[in-house]
């Protein structure tokens, strides 16, 4: 592990138990997060983004969930840690930001208390010092009247403010890694822009690595350094942000990008992807998982056992089908 690499995920597989069988929701994912970068993970709903994130912080219910593979951080394999060992990292080395800040904050606790809570267990600060730190943190996330906000309850704050508080909680341990699971999905565009700008500037400040989970390619384009595209539990493409938007390779990524309404698409039809993401229990476990949604591409174009291939420096694509891929109507024929 080079000094630049913060976190290395190797062959991670997270499976949920449903009716006595384990179904992997994250299947054989390997990713690396480096210092001071924003790694975006995108994909459609249900593709396993949140599962992946929760695996990294070890928040899965150990009874119904099985986590296999390695997550290496500071020479420890997080997968193997006990809850107590993990608690030393959570909130301290790793911060977590949830999508819906309203339900993610304890409705009966004051904001100040909730931020302070992590400090109690991770630092030896006195009560006064902790309170001072809370104010600092609130200041850091751009909340103007910190003192007042600290003594308020979540429901008294606006959505944007709440998300700032969530960020403050994540920052409280000066974490090396921040994981943000769709931090802006619940927000208005103007607020979203503010929060994204905040994340970006904080990162410059504290130099941590951020895993940003989103399904909005616009958000990715705004802030990410590197992007991993997930489909059905797998990473199907990974590339630096400009490379991905300029040179998308995987059919899924390409379709996705084409389905965004663009300035110049005004009176055109949008490209669509047929079918839908299969549910967890019905995921194809063999071959290219995307193949069923591009039926006009012959099976021969797919790899039997799709692997990630490096097609350009830092640009990985799963399966070989991208080479033969063309949009359905590009040939003008429709396979009924």
């Amino acid at each position, binding site marked *: 592990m080079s000094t630049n690499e913060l976190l290395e995920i190797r062959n991670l597989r997270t499976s949920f138990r449903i009716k006595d069988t384990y179904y992997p929701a994250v299947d054989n994912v390997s990713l690396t997060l480096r210092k001071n970068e924003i790694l975006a993970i995108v994909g459609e709903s249900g593709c396993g983004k949140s599962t992946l994130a929760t695996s990294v912080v070890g928040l899965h219910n150990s009874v119904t969930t099985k986590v296999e593979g390695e997550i290496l951080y500071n020479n420890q394999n997080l997968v193997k840690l006990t809850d107590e060992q993990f608690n030393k990292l959570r909130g301290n080395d790793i911060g977590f930001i949830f999508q819906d800040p309203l339900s993610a904050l304890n409705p009966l606790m004051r904001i100040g208390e909730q931020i302070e809570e992590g400090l109690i267990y991770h630092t030896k600060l006195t009560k006064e010092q902790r309170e001072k730190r809370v104010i600092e943190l609130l200041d850091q996330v751009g909340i103007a009247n910190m003192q007042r906000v600290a003594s308020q309850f979540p429901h008294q704050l606006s959505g944007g403010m709440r998300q700032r508080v969530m960020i403050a909680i994540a920052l409280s341990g000066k974490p090396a890694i921040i994981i943000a699971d769709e931090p802006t999905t619940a927000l208005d565009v103007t607020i979203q822009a503010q929060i994204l700008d905040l994340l970006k500037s904080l990162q410059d400040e504290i130099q941590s690595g951020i895993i940003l989970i989103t399904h909005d390619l616009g958000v990715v384009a705004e802030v990410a350094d590197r992007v991993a595209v997930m489909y059905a539990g797998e990473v199907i493409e990974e590339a630096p942000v400009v490379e991905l938007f300029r040179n998308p390779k995987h059919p899924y990524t390409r379709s996705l990008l084409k389905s965004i309404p*663009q300035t110049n698409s005004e009176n055109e039809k*949008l490209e669509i992807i047929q079918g*839908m993401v299969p549910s967890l229990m019905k995921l194809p476990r063999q071959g290219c998982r995307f193949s069923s949604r591009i039926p006009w591409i012959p099976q021969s174009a797919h790899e039997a056992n799709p692997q990630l291939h490096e097609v350009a420096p830092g640009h990985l694509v799963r399966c070989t089908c991208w080479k033969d891929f063309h949009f359905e109507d590009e040939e003008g024929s429709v396979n009924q």
Partner: protein
Amino acid sequence: MSFMQVEDLKVHYPIRGGFFNTVVDHVYAVDGVTMEFDRGKTYGLVGESGSGKSTTGKAIIGLEKITSGRILYEGEDVTNARRKRDSAYNRDIQMIFQDSHSSMNPRKRVLDILAEPIRNFLKLSPQEERKRINELLAIVGMSEDVLLKYPHEFSGGQKQRLGIARAVACNPKMIIADEPVSALDLSVQAQVLNFMKDIQEQYGISYLFISHDLGVVRHMCDHISIMYKGRFVETGKREDIYTNPQHIYTNRLLSAIPDIEPETRIERKLERQQVEAAYRQEQHKYYDKDGKVYPLKSISDSHRVAMSEDEKERV
């Protein structure tokens, strides 16, 4: 010529409080909105959360009481009639809801869901009804065997299409679409948007398309209104809004939209910050002393912007 006009529509919700739980104030959810609709066109309604978009839509279709204002449909005042269940107005104006899931009764099969408007408005024989339903399914591209399923057995996109099928069942003149795609994934969103356009072309339906996603609105709409605190700050053709935004609020909204151009993001961020700073400094000019939006003033045939009297002189 427009077939329907909305004049100075207001919807105020009372806020109760005080000692005897009397009305102490009002939420001015919609506070003087004027629109007109042409056949076969799409009208976008954009604004941040809570600006009154949905309320406007619901008031037009008759789900909300109108505090004041008028709705004229084919020359007739339907302000009161619109709440009558089986009126022609009710048949001709339909709605698509944001949450396709909750817009369908989870206890009803697709058959009954699609049949509901037909049974109420068309009074067909069972065979004709069945025929119509099959037509609808064909329109939305589904086969007949879905009829016996329940809504939860469909994906979001499918459900939204069923919602559209239900809305077009009685050949409406206009459909109010309240954030029809914001709950959907990108690829599914594209399906639904395409589909809505198809239908519009086929049947000449008008849309009132409510959304907070300016990208989608731009893709869909011929005419766009930007809403803020129950009023329009700016309304005009798509080009008017996107190429020549006049109101600072419109500007701010536009600058906040993420773009899928990673190369230019630094510039965009700077620009965004400038607009934000300008907004903070100058917003008092754009709103009156109560923080309300000024009345609209035409600045071209199609383009109207809210501005104060002195502002207008400057322009």
